[in-house]
């Protein structure tokens, strides 16, 4: 049995002291042995950004690729190598800005990959510009008068792309993150895990509301499969269906318990998960659901792609390479040939 230390590399970890990435790395390394997969069959692929240094610190196979494109490499690898456990590590800039297109397509195709999106709501590696998840009006180096664009919610985006597994976790919540990683790893198909990650240099305290014990209870909506969605001190708050069909937060005492929404990540209809994602206030992070939003089973692109090839090979009757010489000769000859003596 492997241990967390077996997943550490000799590379000196180069994140800023105090960065949330350390906590995520430690959690992933200690979770990995439970996967029960030999190190050589695990591949971490990343793009560019602070988070994308992750593969260098994992004693597995790894590729630190180019900005936003990690899902594309993972796509080719997952189609051709079903024996591997493939993890993509990206960030809010890498995965949602420059690489947004690849992320949505990897999700909608439902490839057998697990995507960890470290969301620190800022550009760290390029030293402090705003990111697609930064709150509206945020003052940064590139937006001295405040940002003008509304932030993107990765969970809502993933659900919009019809992702089959969508979850959110917090860097500092080791138990919660481990639980989500476990579920994501077991999921067949594309899994998106958004991890709120503190950048203590350029966006320190961005998630304090969710971490401070005095505010966390009222801010976090924990999602537990099959349980009524209640939160706050002694479950004083609840998520109920609003008159217009959406969701709203209400005082638990003031509503009929039957009205409280029971969390079901396995619903094939994504609208409830989508409504949950929108409960969060992007500015204050009040009512931020944490946990698994959606987990449904659907065919995976890579399985289907391999099946098409395997079926064609089987039908042609030459499964072994080299066994199809006659068929290949026939292919090269085509329909119309002539002979020169």
């Amino acid at each position: 049995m492997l241990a967390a230390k077996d997943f550490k590399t000799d590379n000196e970890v180069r994140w800023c002291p105090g960065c949330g990435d350390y906590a995520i790395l430690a959690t992933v390394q200690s979770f990995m042995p439970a996967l029960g997969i030999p190190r050589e069959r695990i591949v971490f692929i990343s793009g560019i950004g602070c988070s994308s240094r992750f593969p260098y610190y994992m004693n597995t196979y790894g590729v630190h690729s180019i900005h936003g494109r990690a899902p594309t490499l993972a796509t080719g690898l997952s189609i051709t190598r079903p024996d591997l456990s493939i993890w993509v590590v990206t960030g809010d800039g890498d995965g949602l800005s420059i690489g947004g297109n690849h992320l949505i397509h990897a999700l909608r195709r439902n490839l057998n990959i697990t995507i960890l999106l470290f969301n620190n709501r800022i550009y760290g590696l390029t030293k402090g510009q705003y990111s697609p998840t930064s709150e509206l009006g945020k003052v940064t180096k590139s937006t001295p008068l405040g940002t003008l664009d509304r932030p993107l919610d990765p969970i809502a985006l993933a659900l919009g792309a019809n992702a089959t597994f969508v979850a959110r976790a917090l860097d500092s919540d080791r138990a919660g993150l481990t639980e989500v990683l476990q579920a994501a790893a077991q999921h067949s198909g594309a899994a998106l895990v958004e991890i709120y990650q503190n950048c203590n240099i350029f966006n320190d305290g961005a998630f304090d509301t969710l971490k401070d014990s005095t505010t966390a209870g009222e801010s976090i909506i924990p999602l537990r499969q099959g349980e009524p969605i209640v939160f706050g001190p002694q479950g004083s708050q609840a998520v109920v269906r609003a008159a217009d069909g959406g969701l709203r937060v209400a005082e638990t005492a003031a509503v009929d318990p039957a009205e409280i929404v029971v969390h079901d990540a396995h619903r094939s209809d994504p609208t409830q998960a989508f409504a949950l994602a929108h409960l969060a206030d992007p500015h204050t992070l009040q009512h931020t659901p944490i946990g698994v939003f959606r987990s449904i089973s659907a065919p995976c692109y890579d399985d289907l792609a391999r099946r098409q090839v395997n079926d064609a090979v089987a039908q042609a009757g030459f499964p072994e390479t080299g066994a199809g010489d006659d068929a290949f000769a026939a292919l090269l000859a085509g329909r119309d040939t002539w002979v020169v003596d």
Partner: protein
Amino acid sequence: MSEVMVNPSGSVPPPAPAKPVERRDRVIIRFAGDSGDGMQLTGDRFTSASAIFGNDVATLPDFPAEIRAPAGTLPGVSAFQVHFADHDILTPGDAPDVLIAMNPAALRANLKDLPRGAEIILDADEFTPRNLQRVGYSADPRADESLAAYTVRELPLTTLTRAAVADSGVGKKDAARAKNMFALGLVSWLYSRPLDTTRGYLEKKFARAPQILAANLAALNAGYAFGETTEDFSVRYEVAPAADFPAGRYRNISGNLALAYGLVAAGRGCHRPVFLGSYPITPASDVLHLLAGMKQFGVTTFQAEDEIAGIGAALGAAYGGAIGVTTTSGPGMALKSEMIGLAVALELPLVIVDVQRGGPSTGLPTKTEQSDLMQALFGRNGESPVIVIAAQSPSDCFDTAIEAVALATRTRTPVILLSDGYLANGTEPWRIPAVADLPTWDPGFATTEQWQDREFTPYSRDPVSLARPWALPGTPGLTHRIGGLEKADVTGAISYDPANHDTMVRLRQAKVDAVAATIPPLAVDDPDGARVLVLGWGSTYGPIKAAVQAVRAGGQSVARLHLRHLNPLPRDLADVLPRYDRVVLPEMNLGQLATIIRARYLVDVISVTQVRGLPFTSGELTGVLKDVIASVD
């Protein structure tokens, strides 16, 4: 203009006495019509029949970028030129001997290419005042002197076709659409081509539409019979089978098809699955379509969300041990640049096929050009050397594809294969290789056993090729991390050390340069010690060789050298170039290889350029060569 006999019942009149047959050594026919008239199919069928008959053939399709430009307009004209001969020919021909014009637009668009004395067969039914006006004819060209230099055969092709297909039960529209088959039948008669391969083709194509099949067959047969009986044609022609072909079984093949076959052959050659990641783009899309139909040979095709994802997926597959390939054209190449740079840094095998077209930007999607050479050689940030090779003819795309894969896998380096629109869609006869004769090789993956006594160093190198180990995920004991950041020599750890960067930049260059040692010696075609050398690369092969033959036929000497390897250049090129007083270099760009040759070898080549979206004609090159030869005498 002669009277035309129309037989309204469509039945064939009793056979007239056989007409005299004249021999021709070669003929160039251009079929031209609306893009909806089926000219590409007509040309393709005529070519097939000629090839099977045993002629040498070369073709040049020329079609609009729009799928269906407005009918009857100049932009909507689609043409297909075929050159067939009783000897080895190298180009689709400079100027057509015969133009089949299905409407006034086709006549107007192509007339400028016709030499005096050429024959024009046109559909008289289409020469209505309205149609003439639409293409800017203020007067009917048949009525004034504008066609005086040509032999014009005015035939009511639409009427004849309608009459011929009357019994097949198709509607008026489908009946008229069969007129390309009528024209094909007529031209087949005129040049003594058998109809059976086209009949077989139609039977397969329209197996599920018996009425349309009947209409097409009726039109084809009627066209043939019409030639036999009409007084319009007093003689027919014959082009004997070509005798100067090496023995073997042949087929006709386009560059894109040959390329697809070559990639499959390469995967079989090194026993690895082929993975194509691609995004549709003219004129490369056919390679994606074709390979998508070859799954039974273990080929996986992935239509990506964009050009970048296409190459990214190919690189990911290559990392996993597949033959990673991406296909594109100029604008797509631009998008792939960064990923090619990553492949250079990762030192993984990857094949990038650029079927070049007219640029810049969207440019001329359906026209040919050789203007991506500099982009292939240098179009990336940093010192980013890749291997660049170019195919010289449609069938050569097969061998070039195999070589690209072999070079990529052996050196663990991206290889750019340059084709172009002319090669992609043009066709020529191809001697079908025996499968047993195709090359095989071992991709040579790193193994646990090789490294069991020492720590795996992903950036250690083979002493000769300088290639690094290709260690596939899944191999125990070889876990390692690679990336786009500069790596320390040998260990591959991230390194920002100045001296190390200098070492690594030079190593990557040296690795690509080392390929030159594996390039066979140049074969200069110089039978009699010429003083002028004509140098070429890519698809100018045919026109240059034809021009060289014409010059020699005129009693003058000229040497010829065609390059397949553009990076690295062959080592002996440095010895060959100074042997000549003048080096002429024709390119379909503004002198890109000429710039390289001048810079590398300090040889002041005479750069001959044109960017009209069409290949050089051998005639213009013959003129250029004669002028240069005269200047050194």
